């Protein structure tokens, strides 16, 4: 069922005089015109031309639009690298309680003892899971966690007088945020090749590792879903050169309670709480990207950190070597709070079982998919794997993108596509531990079916969705980034 009622752009069904929310009358004595309170030159000549709609229109609009989304709650969502696991509803209820939702970020610590205890414990949990003792919960998302850690590294090297360390090494299979964060932190990035086995090419690393190396950013398990078996050698090499090792923690779901970044030689890592600890992804965010670092890097973390003194909790701002702030207020606490609830629900054994079943599900799906597509790298995999549709493209002119679009017709969200860059026609699949064998079988059966379908049907998919194959070139060329009334269209400056 596709309900199109009230699904025009908001402004198109706006009607002057309609409204939804009403505010009460002013209950303080304030008879004077507004311009006696604020001089007229500060006041706008008119109100912003927001849409004017009634409550039922608003609700139908956004409700009907919501049905045009695929989501974890409606579809299997095997989006590699994103850990699209089930988002427990208990977290939503608890996060909406006024004892949390109505906490102002600048309240006095004495009024925050409950939330500070939760955040203090969260710092402890993340330290324990990573094997890295000092934690900052401030970064708002994984990319900001990376950036924060690189700032910490830069401050550490400045403090040591080693400002010649200008280089950050990044594997070619890394997320794009890694080199982008390194550049923003003022470093030069150097790409390290992957070998045929999908792992860091040790020879290339050795060649490029030098006295001006500051940090090696490694993802482990890497984006191919493979554990870097030589991780200890790699981290030993970096440390022998006086450099630091950063772990991109996007793939922590595979190793919870199995191995710890601190134990395999990482000096810093970020978490994606919205992935590993199931803060909902929100249609693109919010995330939360706390970092954990070794003791000798702790002085450089962003302030504040929650500390415990006796049975009291306090925000500690007294960190003279701190890099400062990367955002305002404490962090994306709503997501951290959900992550805390998740960790408490599962406990130590539960967290380990998450990793075990994420890896079991990935390997089972891998086994099924291997009967359909090439999987360039040997198994077993960790929590995800990357298949290649190149032979299907060669033989039947069906691309990875086509497969993704056709999957939508069968009510499956697509895998991550064309990433990592080291695999042609890449299809990156991460089933997560919260899916059943039946779902994985149905998905694999569908892939097998698509492979044999009339290529024309696949190339023009999806056929059952409200739209099919948007013209992305036109979008980039036209640059219609906001709604404008039809009459004004011809005078749009960007359409010159």
């Amino acid at each position: 069922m596709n309900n199109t009622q009230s699904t025009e752009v908001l402004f198109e069904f706006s009607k002057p005089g309609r409204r939804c929310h009403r505010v009460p009358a002013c209950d303080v004595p304030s008879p004077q015109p507004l311009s006696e309170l604020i001089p007229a030159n500060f006041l706008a000549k008119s109100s912003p031309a927001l849409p004017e709609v009634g409550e039922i229109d608003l609700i139908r609009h956004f409700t009907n639009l919501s049905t045009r989304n695929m989501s974890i709650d409606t579809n299997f969502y095997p989006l590699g690298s994103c850990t699209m696991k089930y988002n427990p509803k208990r977290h939503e209820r608890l996060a909406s309680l006024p004892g949390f939702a109505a906490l102002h970020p600048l309240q006095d610590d004495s009024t925050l003892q409950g939330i500070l205890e939760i955040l203090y414990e969260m710092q402890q949990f993340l330290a324990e899971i990573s094997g890295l003792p000092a934690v900052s919960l401030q970064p708002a998302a994984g990319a900001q966690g990376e950036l924060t850690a690189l700032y910490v590294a830069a401050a550490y090297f400045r403090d040591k007088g080693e400002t010649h360390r200008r280089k950050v090494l990044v594997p070619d299979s890394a997320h794009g945020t890694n080199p982008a964060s390194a550049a923003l932190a003022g470093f030069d990035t150097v790409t390290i090749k992957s070998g045929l086995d999908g792992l860091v090419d040790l020879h290339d690393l050795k060649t490029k590792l030098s006295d001006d190396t500051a940090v090696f950013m490694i993802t482990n398990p890497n984006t191919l879903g493979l554990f870097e078996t030589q991780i200890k050698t790699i981290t030993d090499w970096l440390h022998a050169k006086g450099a630091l090792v950063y772990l991109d923690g996007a793939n922590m779901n595979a190793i919870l309670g199995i191995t710890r970044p601190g134990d395999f030689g990482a000096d810093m890592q970020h978490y994606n709480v919205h992935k590993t600890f199931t803060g909902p992804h929100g249609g693109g965010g919010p995330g939360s990207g706390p970092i954990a670092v070794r003791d000798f890097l702790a002085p450089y973390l962003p302030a504040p950190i929650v500390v415990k003194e006796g049975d009291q909790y306090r925000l500690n701002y007294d960190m003279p070597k701190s890099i400062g702030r990367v955002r305002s207020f404490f962090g994306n606490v709503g997501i951290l709070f959900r992550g805390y609830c998740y960790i408490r629900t599962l406990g130590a054994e539960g967290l380990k079982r998450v990793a075990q079943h994420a890896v079991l599900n990935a390997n089972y799906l891998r086994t099924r998919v291997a009967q359909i597509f090439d999987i360039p790298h040997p198994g077993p995999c960790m929590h995800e794997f990357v298949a290649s549709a190149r032979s299907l493209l060669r033989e039947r002119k069906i691309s990875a993108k086509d497969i993704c679009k056709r999957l939508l017709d069968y009510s499956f969200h697509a895998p991550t596509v064309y990433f990592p860059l080291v695999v042609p026609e890449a299809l990156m699949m991460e089933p997560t531990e919260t899916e059943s064998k039946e779902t994985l079988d149905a998905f694999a059966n569908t892939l097998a079916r698509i492979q044999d379908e009339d290529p024309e049907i696949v190339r023009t998919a999806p056929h059952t969705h409200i739209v099919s194959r948007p013209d992305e070139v036109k979008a980039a060329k036209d640059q219609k980034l906001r709604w404008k009334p039809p009459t004004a269209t011809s005078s749009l400056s960007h359409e010159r």
Partner: protein
Amino acid sequence: MPYILNTPDDEKAMLAAIGVSSIEDLFAKVPPEVRLNRLLNIPGPMAEMELQAHVLRLLAKNQSAANTICFLGGGAYDHFIPSVVDVIAGRSEYYTAYTPYQAEASQGTLQAIFEYQSLMCVLTGMDVANASLYDGGSATAEAMLMALGITKRSEVVVAESVHPEYRQVLATYAANLNCQLRTVPTPEGFLNPNDIRACLSEATACIIVQSPNFFGHLEDMEAVAAAAHSVGGLFVASFDPISLGILQRPGDYRADIAVAEGQGLGVPLQFGGPYLGILTCRDDPRFLRKIPGRLVGETVDRHGQRCWVLTLQPREQHIARANATSNICTNQGLLALRAAVYLTALGPQGLKETAELCTRKAHYAAEQLTRIPGVSLRFRTPFFKEFTLRVPGDPINLLAKLRSAGFLAGLPLGRWYPHLADCISIAVTEQRTQAEIDGLAAALRDCL
């Protein structure tokens, strides 16, 4: 085991299909010397009932805007959130989806973000809005990066009256780039137009000014714009979205980039985040090349039907990598949705009335409080919903006494501004009633 569906029989069948005899075999590539040979030191597990009781016990230790009377501001405000906002943002089709890279499977999110971008343009009078950034602080830093990139200049000037935490974020970002950050003192509680020219030069990439500023008072944004433009620099304005129900818009006073903390637009206080970083700018190809983060654009599909996609992605990290305009990937999509629903629910009239209520109540509060002997307005300039009071004695002690009387009465400013150690700032939203304001005045009188 919650959330895991594999039964022992499933597990057996899956392992057989894979061709291994145990789950442990699947971890064979994790070298023994890096394995954790014990359980993590983490308590639990907890059933839902236990978890809820545990969390309720902890939350009961907090005081909040829900069980006290909150006059705290400083960039986060206790504005009312209409129920429609929670209902829509609570639809799991929105909150359990991810980045809308598969446009056909994400038209709901894409259209909502397009509408958010459109609403931000209407609200601010600017031409372009991105799909959201993390918060007001990092949005200000991203605006600074944009200005540095657009002007290819190296100096950034910021008024001391800008939120101190935003300025700390600017300092952190600037410390690792080739740029100089200069802070202009604002002893009168705002950036005096006569002082602006002296701070600017041909090297100035941008000047960053917030209005209403951290003290709640208004800045002469037209004068700042003129000064910035006269040296060929850009003007980055930080605004309060609620204030735009009545105050001049950044587009009116010729801002080049306008940023804000969007928390007031239907986002719960929730101890500081997730909030919403708003970034808008002029329609100029140089700006569009440097704008950070995601953008949703309108296009047509293969049937010619209007639809929406993520666009101009070559700016972004997943394509440009080290040359990206920003490293941002995950943004604040769900909060952008909340803001879109909030502004739609209020409409032009509701936003105007809300802003006007804040103004009238704040001015009433200032009037009542300054009748108390020894209490006075610290600055003489116009303010919107927040103002700065000089109080007798130690503000920290005073605020502690007021907490005991049931009020989160204000922010002590000495923490950020040593010269204002005898001052507090007080924010009054549309939610505060006359009884609550009179109550605060009575309590303050009692505490002095």
